[in-house]
């Protein structure tokens, strides 16, 4: 194969361009940007649920739906309350009608009458997004529409979400849903607009029994952080390795 000087120059220029062009996909960070990206945040939001205090009034669910503009009568909600009734025969009866939005005022569970004499234990378990340290929902997003902030909260970019639903499938806790009006994935974000202003999340503020509390794990003087650090707390589905940050006091082994 012979190669004229003209061909050699042409191919060299073409080859250089072809190899340099993809490099434009990368961005070079200035030193300040790089430092900001790895800087330690002074906040790590976490949540404490005291299941022993919850009475199943569902006012947290009502407040959450109103505060976060989740269609009130749609069967989707960012937080919900589950009722567990464990009977003497070892059966576990679980229900959460409309996510517990209207509370639990009937002792029937899924139209089943349960004799109080047969009940071993009964309790309510509020659930919400766990704001995991290793959020599976974020890993699967194909467009970068959901992400973890510096303070540990996982957010969804409504302008960027394409509504593919991968994250809804990926979440082991089932906290994500498709927002019927916004047409994007949606979930609890600890009321990010409230906690970033120093307010409590709506569900925490509306809980009359102190069953729901928010904590900044990076602040050792935070009273709720002290409880999480010193008392016996559990998390849901630890075996998934997602490192959930909603901690439960008095969590029963029967809770799934």
């Amino acid at each position: 194969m012979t190669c004229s000087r003209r061909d050699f120059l042409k191919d060299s220029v073409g080859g250089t361009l072809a190899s340099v062009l993809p490099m434009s996909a990368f961005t070079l960070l200035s030193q300040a940007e790089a430092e900001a990206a790895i800087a330690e945040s002074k906040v790590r939001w976490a949540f404490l649920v005291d299941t022993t205090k919850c009475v199943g009034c569902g006012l947290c669910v009502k407040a959450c739906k109103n505060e976060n503009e989740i269609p009130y009568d749609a069967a989707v909600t960012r937080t919900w309350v589950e009722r567990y009734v464990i009977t003497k025969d070892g059966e576990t009866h679980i229900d959460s009608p409309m996510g517990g939005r209207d509370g639990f005022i009937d002792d029937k569970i899924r139209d089943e009458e349960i004799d109080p004499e047969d009940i071993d234990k009964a309790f309510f378990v509020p659930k919400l997004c766990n704001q995991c340290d290793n959020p599976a929902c974020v890993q699967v997003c194909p467009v970068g529409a959901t992400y973890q902030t510096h303070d540990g909260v996982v957010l969804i970019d409504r302008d960027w979400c394409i509504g593919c639903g991968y994250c809804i499938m990926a979440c082991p806790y089932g906290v994500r849903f498709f927002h019927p009006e916004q047409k994007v994935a949606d979930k609890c974000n600890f009321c990010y607009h409230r906690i970033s202003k120093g307010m409590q999340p709506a569900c925490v503020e509306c809980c009359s029994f102190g069953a729901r509390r928010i904590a900044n794990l990076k602040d050792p003087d935070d009273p709720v952080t002290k409880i999480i650090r010193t008392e016996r707390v559990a998390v849901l589905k630890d075996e998934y390795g997602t490192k959930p940050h909603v901690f439960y006091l008095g969590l029963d082994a029967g809770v799934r």
Partner: protein
Amino acid sequence: MKWHVLRPLWVAIGLVGLILVSRQFLVPDDFGVHGRNFTYGYHRLSNIQEWKDFPVKYRGRESCVECHEENVSMLNASSHEPVECENCHGPAVNHPDDKELLPLDTRRELCLRCHAFLDYPNSDRGELMSIEDKRHKRRYECIKCHNPHDPKEDME
């Protein structure tokens, strides 16, 4: 260099180039890795501020007390002290600027959320002052006899 395989290769390279160039215009400037790494922090930075600007609806009793001091202090002195005003009166949002009257929920079902008797051992629910819905003045709203701001008032 007249090899038929090269032609689709040029097309492919051209397409990649086209995508990379149009990306420069379509992707917002603040889109990139902002969190701890690419896996968890690849996003549009300004979205964080957009979420922070989401409107607050529940303003808490500190905002109610500014005008309704009498009611709030009555509530605070009663056994209903832990119950937030907005649980029954609804979220304040911009009240009283653009919502003069809040939609007060006076239904029986609201009170029953806590006060319907459920015979649950080991649960605080069983210990709340409660009624059996089917046996206690079924046709009336609770507030006909009980004052929610001071529930013990009429109980003696």
